[in-house]
């Protein structure tokens, strides 16, 4: 329970492990997502370093083919599901209620549950390395390679169960957030006054809600093919491997927008603050984001141009893919319009935000190239695609996330990350990223395929591979700089004011970090940039009424218990069904306990 009485008390409750295990506070859950996501980011980066080291020279001997296949599969799976998505979820968890003027999300215990199920799925998937080998069929696990006959180990079963758990976690979180945004906004916070970051995350939530079920069906079918004698994807029995590809990509294409939209939202928040200008073309930004999502459901077969599609589908999907460049371009021009004529402060957050625009645009340009089927027939499965992916996902998503980290660090922790180290981090990351991924355009165009663990010396690929590997180590160094910055900063005492950047959005109306109850008084919103409006119109912060008692939802261990039950359910599918039965019992018990426990 927390009370407020005139002043703004810092929340200094004793944080034990049990506090964290039973928390339903969105800020703590956001912190857990953030730390876990970043840890897996480091793991996936390490996997990438191994890949690059193996490919630095022709016929490398760092890892064998089997291990290499596991590495690139897990690198992608870890980056996508265990790093980028949780980091986005971390920001959204922490800031959603604050930015819309609420005190928590719609279903706090469900929020905690989604974290624990995520952690279970993440650990299960990663543990595959020590339980017979990680999945090695790529993150897309194409049939018929994924069949038991050709992948007889357990790697792909870990893939199926792991992704089912992770998908469940994301679905639960997305449902919760969608209800929160729709139904829990502060008075005056109409939909078209929502911060663009919130709009982008709302769109992301709907993308997940509508696409996750499709891959769930695909995963179930793969599980059944591998373990229950069905033949959904076995051609000789009447099945069709292309069905897997369609179902997978109907999910996985919207998924890539899930990966990029949060960072686009973050950049849309950061640029106005450090250009001291409102975002250019707010309505267009919102509609463009929605358009990207809607179109994102209509382009999936552009991943399948080389599978023998008929002419008409090829044309349709090519056209829809190129069409997505339009709303994307609108966003890019609007970001530039925000900067133009602004009074720009070049701090680290701003460096990352501006470079996001450039790097993502490069990735977008290569993407439009392979939207053309004949061009794609050259580029598919080559390093040109790898270049595209990493420009949009590293130069886009990751760079945007770092921008958000530097921007929001004072609000999250009460401290400022060091600017000098931040600039070193930025420049080494920028140089490293381009050094690693730009040469891959050349490698792809000169014919280097993806997912090969070695290459011969006389193919002309050595130079660029070596450059890319050097770049990867520069990238690793840059992350090290960030980690040093982080740890040295956290050892300082918190001293940040409420709104050090003079930013416009509501989260900056609280202390840094916010008290447990977020707002002493729920704000009334009069403008799209509430704090700038209040500042420019001399509107004071609301008086805190005397004797104010704010009731917060009490902690609960049922989300943790239910998360454990679902992990057990998954483990049982991979080993003994008795464990699954036990997991189900624990889940049912948890649901009952949850429904009956008092929340006031």
């Amino acid at each position, binding site marked *: 329970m927390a009370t407020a009485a005139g002043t703004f008390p810092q929340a200094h409750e004793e944080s034990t492990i049990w506090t964290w295990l039973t928390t339903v506070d969105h800020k703590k859950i956001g912190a857990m997502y953030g730390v876990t996501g970043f840890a897996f980011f480091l793991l996936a980066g390490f996997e990438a370093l191994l890949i690059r080291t193996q490919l630095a020279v022709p016929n490398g001997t760092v890892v064998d083919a089997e291990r290499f296949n596991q590495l690139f599969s897990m690198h992608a799976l870890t980056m996508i599901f265990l790093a980028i998505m949780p980091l986005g979820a971390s920001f959204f968890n922490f800031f959603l209620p604050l930015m819309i003027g*609420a*005190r*928590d999300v*719609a*279903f*706090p*215990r469900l929020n905690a549950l989604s974290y624990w199920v995520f952690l279970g799925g993440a650990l299960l998937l990663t543990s595959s390395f020590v339980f017979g080998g990680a999945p090695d069929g790529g993150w897309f696990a194409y049939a018929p390679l994924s069949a038991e006959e050709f992948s007889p180990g357990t790697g792909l079963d870990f893939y199926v169960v792991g992704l089912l758990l992770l998908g469940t976690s994301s*679905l639960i979180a997305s*449902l*919760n957030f*969608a*209800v929160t945004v*729709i*139904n*829990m*906004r*502060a*008075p005056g*916070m109409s939909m078209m006054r929502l911060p663009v970051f919130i709009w982008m995350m709302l769109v992301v939530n709907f993308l997940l*809600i*509508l*696409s*996750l*079920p*499709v891959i*769930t*069906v*695909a995963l*179930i*079918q793969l599980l*059944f093919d591998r373990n*229950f*004698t*069905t*033949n*959904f994807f076995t051609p000789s*029995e*009447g*099945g*069709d491997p292309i*069905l897997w590809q369609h*179902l997978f990509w*109907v999910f996985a294409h919207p998924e890539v927008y899930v990966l990029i939209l949060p960072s686009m939202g973050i950049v849309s928040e950061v640029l106005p603050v450090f250009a001291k200008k409102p975002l250019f073309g707010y309505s267009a930004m919102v509609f463009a984001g929605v358009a990207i999502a809607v179109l994102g459901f209509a382009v999936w077969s552009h991943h399948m141009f080389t599978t023998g599609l008929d002419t008409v589908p090829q044309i349709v999907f090519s056209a829809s893919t190129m069409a997505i460049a339009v709303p994307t371009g609108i966003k890019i021009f609007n970001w530039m319009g925000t900067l133009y004529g602004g009074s720009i402060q070049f701090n680290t957050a701003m460096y990352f935000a501006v470079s996001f625009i450039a790097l993502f645009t490069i990735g977008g340009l290569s993407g439009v190239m392979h939207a053309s089927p004949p061009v794609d027939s050259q580029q598919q499965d080559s390093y040109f695609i790898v270049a595209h992916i990493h420009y949009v996902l590293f130069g886009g998503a990751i760079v945007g996330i770092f921008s958000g980290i530097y921007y929001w660090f004072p609000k999250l922790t009460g401290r400022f990350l060091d600017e000098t180290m931040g600039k070193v981090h930025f420049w080494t990351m920028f140089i490293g990223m381009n050094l690693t991924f730009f040469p891959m355009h050349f490698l792809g165009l000169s014919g280097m395929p993806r997912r090969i663990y070695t290459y011969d010396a006389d193919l002309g690929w050595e130079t660029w591979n070596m450059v890319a590997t050097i770049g990867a180590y520069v990238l690793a160094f840059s992350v090290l700089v960030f980690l040093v910055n982080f740890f040295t900063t956290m050892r300082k005492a918190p001293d940040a004011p409420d709104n050090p950047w003079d930013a416009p959005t509501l989260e900056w109306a609280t202390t840094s970090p916010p008290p447990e109850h977020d707002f002493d008084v*729920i704000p009334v919103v009069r403008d799209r940039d509430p704090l700038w409006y209040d500042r420019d119109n001399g509107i004071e912060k609301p008086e805190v009424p005397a004797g104010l008692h*704010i*009731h917060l*939802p009490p902690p609960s261990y049922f989300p943790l218990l239910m998360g454990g039950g679902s992990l057990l359910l998954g483990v049982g599918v991979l080993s003994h069904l008795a464990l699954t039965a036990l997991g189900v019992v624990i889940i*049912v018990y948890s*649901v*009952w306990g*949850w*429904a*009956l*426990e008092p*929340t*006031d």
Partner: protein
Amino acid sequence: MAAAEAAHGEHHASAGVDNRMLLMWIFLASECLFFGSLISTYLIFKGESLVRPLPEDVFDIPLTSASTFVLLMSSFTMVLAVYGAQHARPQMMKAALLATIIGGLVFLGFQVFEFKTFADEGLTLSTNQFGASFFVLTGFHGTHVGVGVLYLSSILFGSMRRNGLGKDGGTHVEIVGLYWHFVDIVWIVIFTVVYLIP
């Protein structure tokens, strides 16, 4: 979920609806994609089986019509349960909930019988694409019915406690009703697309 989460202090529900109702409706939208993918798979493999039995060899349309009718009746008792909950008639609500649960169980009984009969006639998951896609589709629908029966039973048991379902009781029953009706309309689609359409 028994929750006062939506009623914190002077909280404003900007769209003006109950959080839990909104949650269930959005969840049902998600379920449309789930069953849509399963039905798509069934339709894609229609006519692609390499061996018999095919639908015409095993389907017993009159029997399945009976089970369809049972599920339809359970939807009817479900609306009565919601009506009873919302009009302060707890006996009506409890009786109707019980009838709905029984309807669900009878439907499941029909499903189990049908699955066993088909297996005896040579149709299993591994036999052909019809078997695989049929059993996975109707099996997952049946699982949803089973979860619904458990959910309904929980609400019924909850209503038999001293405080009943609390002041939000009507909403709880309404929400389980949404889930149950959805399971019914999915069956309407499956019955037509899988059983009736040649």
